[in-house]
């Protein structure tokens, strides 16, 4: 974050975190990475890290100024178990937002969430 004080308290409209656009990006990353893959204990760990990095890189490539990103990815073995994931955020609703996507097949399930937080 090298751009010091610009006193911009809001992002420009075309450079605002757009949840729908980010959701598509996340879904695309998940589909590309995990279609036809089977759950395997060693590979799953690697996939989660790579997915998180890929999604973060795609978000950075969107070139939205002064945004901080948090990307969280969960991959689990598909055993029909119940899983509930939720989050709450304490932030500025006008500038900050989140997007998530899920993927599942017969042997695994995956969820990815991305949060974008604006730096004043």
């Amino acid at each position, binding site marked *: 974050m090298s751009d010091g004080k610009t006193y911009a308290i809001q992002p420009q409209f075309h450079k605002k975190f757009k949840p729908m656009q980010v959701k598509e990006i996340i879904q695309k990353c998940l589909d590309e990475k995990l279609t036809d893959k089977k759950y395997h204990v060693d590979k799953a760990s690697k996939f989660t890290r790579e997915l998180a990095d890929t999604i973060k890189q795609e978000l950075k490539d969107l070139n939205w100024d002064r945004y901080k*990103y948090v990307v969280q990815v969960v991959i689990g073995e598909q055993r029909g178990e119940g899983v*509930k994931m939720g989050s709450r*955020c304490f932030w500025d609703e006008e500038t900050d937002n989140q997007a998530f996507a899920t993927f599942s097949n017969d042997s695994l399930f995956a969820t990815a969430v991305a949060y974008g937080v604006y730096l004043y």
Partner: protein
Amino acid sequence: MDFEGEGDRTFNQEEVRQIVEESVNSSLANAIYTHSKVTTWQATIVENTLKRLAALNKPFKYVVTCMISQNTGGATHTAHTCFWDAETDGFTKFRFENQTMVCLTTVYGMGI
């Protein structure tokens, strides 16, 4: 910018972890995974944590996530990556496990 406690510009991991631990334990201690109650538990944990974090009155924005899953022996992998200012921002996590379920709660704090 003038905030009280201007010295607290770094995310305090220990303090936040304590808050999360207390929230989770108060909801889930001695609980058995019940499909109908999971939504309530998860909402309670996250809201209580967030309320207490907001009450700390520090110049931070927070994201709290909570994942509760049934303990069937199946494995889950989680990863996260963050693009932020390492001097002011940080995260904590707390994992709760019993015979029937696993609960992983994470808090990300980003300095304003």
